[in-house]
């Protein structure tokens, strides 16, 4: 038999029908929905008088428009957003789809709640009307984002017409230096292969550095693969992944466990499987990375300087520097920020918050800025409160808010003012993303914590405290 990549195995095991040389009808095990990319899909079903094919394989949450003010019972003040939330509830009730509604204690960002409650299992195909669905590769599940037309298609058929991607392997060997994280690693990778370096590919991450990452760190890595244009990201599920899943999936009990383990053991690329493109990176090269421009690939180590506008990228660099108000040759170290945002599907899980707490414990946020923490979900929030982390953050001067996507894309009322500069643990530093004219610097949670304490972008490794 021809050796196969993990990606091909996942596609083959979900192919209902081969449609032509490029397309298959792909069965989708789990479909996640939010309030803003699903309404037109439900409306389309209604128009055509179509049913939801398999409601139990779908789940929805209110995540993008939800306010995060630190109040117990949340009321969405914006009438249009309130309508999106009530519309989602109505659609879920109508079609018998489980929903994490606005005031559900476990509500949160889709990519945080689905894995934390054991809904993501190795070998699954998971889709969502959200580009960061690549996150689930961390558990050996093929996840990818889709548009609203495809949301409707999945609702009606539980399948997608799926155009096959090519195979890319990114190997990272060695040890991540102390004070660096998988966020720094992925920013380094994107800065080297570019914002479209993985366009058309599903990326399999491997190597000793990847294997030694926690599952939450792997989520961060796979989550941001889409910022290099990847259609999916995968990590072969190992014991760490399987332990994570089994702890959260009590339904996979003794009667099923050996079958599940046997199945999951096959979820790796065969020894001689061929990849269309391979990259190799050394984890020792990773330093705390920070973005300086308006695309995630415009990122540099904190120890470096911003590139000069020259060469083939001249116009692009000039354009980005004009927007961010910076100049070629400048370091980012010492650059004052107005805001610190810790949150998003990239970095708002419990380990991220523990890292922030370790850096800021016993210290205080600079009076020159506003710093907020938006936990990824109700469960993360409750755990952080139980562990005493929330109190550490509050004592340090952070706002401790309710869960949601919040200022990652600023669809709710957490929006920056024009010209404000933000140290952000999110995934996109696009123009206007966090608010019109606002400037985003992507970085790890530890680096954002360091910026919060000092008032400027700085190397967290200088501050002491543990950040690994």
């Amino acid at each position, binding site marked *: 038999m021809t050796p196969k990549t993990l990606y091909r195995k996942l596609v083959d095991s*979900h192919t*209902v029908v081969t*449609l*032509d040389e*490029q397309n298959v*009808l792909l*069965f989708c*095990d*789990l479909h996640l929905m939010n309030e*803003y*990319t699903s*309404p*037109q899909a439900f409306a389309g079903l209604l128009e055509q008088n179509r049913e939801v*094919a*398999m409601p*139990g*394989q*779908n*789940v929805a949450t209110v995540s*993008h428009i939800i306010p995060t003010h630190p109040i117990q019972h949340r009321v969405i003040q*914006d009438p*249009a957003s309130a309508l*999106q939330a009530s519309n989602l509830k109505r659609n879920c009730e109508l079609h018998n789809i*489980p929903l*994490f509604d606005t005031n559900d204690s476990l509500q949160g960002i889709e990519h945080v709640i689905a894995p934390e409650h054991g*809904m993501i*299992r190795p*070998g699954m195909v998971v889709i969502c*009307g*959200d*580009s960061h669905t690549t996150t689930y590769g961390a558990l050996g599940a093929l996840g990818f*984002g889709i*548009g*609203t*037309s495809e949301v409707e298609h999945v609702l009606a*058929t*539980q*399948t997608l017409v799926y*155009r096959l991607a090519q195979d890319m392997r990114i190997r990272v060997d060695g040890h991540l230096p102390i004070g660096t994280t998988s966020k720094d690693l992925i920013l380094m990778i994107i800065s080297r292969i570019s*914002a*479209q370096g993985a*366009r*058309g590919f599903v990326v399999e991450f491997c190597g000793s550095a990847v294997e030694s990452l926690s599952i939450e760190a792997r989520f961060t890595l796979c989550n941001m693969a889409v910022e290099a*244009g990847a*259609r999916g990201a995968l990590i072969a599920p190992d014991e760490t992944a399987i332990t994570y899943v089994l702890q959260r*999936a009590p*339904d996979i009990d003794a009667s*099923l466990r050996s079958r*599940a383990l046997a*199945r999951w053991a096959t979820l790796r690329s065969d020894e001689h499987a061929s990849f269309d493109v391979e990259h190799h990176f050394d984890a020792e090269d990773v330093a705390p990375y920070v973005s300086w421009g308006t*695309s995630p690939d415009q990122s540099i180590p904190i120890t470096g300087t911003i590139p000069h506008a020259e060469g083939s990228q001249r116009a*692009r660099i000039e354009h980005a520097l004009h927007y961010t108000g910076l100049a070629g040759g400048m370091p980012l170290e010492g650059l004052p920020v107005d805001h610190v945002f810790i949150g998003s599907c990239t970095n708002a899980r419990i380990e991220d918050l523990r890292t922030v707490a370790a850096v800021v414990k016993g210290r205080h946020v600079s009076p020159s800025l506003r710093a907020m923490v938006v936990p990824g979900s109700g469960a993360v929030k409750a755990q952080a409160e139980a562990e005493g982390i929330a109190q550490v953050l509050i004592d340090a001067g952070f706002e401790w808010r309710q869960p949601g996507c919040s200022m990652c*894309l*600023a669809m709710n009322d957490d929006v920056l003012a024009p010209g404000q500069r933000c140290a952000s643990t999110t995934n*996109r530093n*696009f*123009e*206007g*993303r966090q608010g*019109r004219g606002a400037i985003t610097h992507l970085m790890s949670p530890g680096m954002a914590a360091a910026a919060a304490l000092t008032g400027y972008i700085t190397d967290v490794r200088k501050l002491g405290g543990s950040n690994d």
Partner: protein
Amino acid sequence: MTDTHRIAGIAALLDIANLDTDQIMPKQFLRGIDKAGLDKGVLWDLRFDGEGRPRADFVLNRPEYAGTRVLVAGPNFGCGSSREHAVWGLQQYGIRAVIAPSFAEIFYSNAMNNGLLAVTLPETDIIELMKETTEGAAPMRVEIDVDVMIVRSPRMTRSFALSDRHRRMFLEGVDMIGATLAHKADIAAFAQRHWGQQPWVRDVARRTKQRLERR
């Protein structure tokens, strides 16, 4: 040749690499539950200043570019968020095709699923087209023949590739869901087999939610 087979009109140049969907359709226009009114939001920050006044220097605001049908754009067009609102908005604004060296994957699928033609040409051709767009006194007009997959500008004729499926969808407007529902029995049989092998994925969302509610 019917209208779906041929796109002809003014082409405007957007020489920006990685033009993301946040810029094509900013967040404040994503709060609807239908597709209406998205033409208003298209490329908002590029078209309007902070006070909401049109930027006179932006190409689509120049009077001679009224009725633009085609955008000539930089690589990785439509990267970032999966929001299909970006495609709906471009169409409502009157754009029928985007010509670029490359498109982000989700945007490309969204475009094809809505009949917005995404034409990929080599970067060297795009540079030529961009030159041609900026050199003339009047806006450049292009013509795209989808049947034979050819783009024509006054100085250049180039063929482009479309998969058979996408070409057919564009020309015939296939009801994708209807076509898939023709495989309904295959899907049901597949699901039974799949769940027989992996019972732990069956009803995974519903069972998880029920378990959490019992806690």
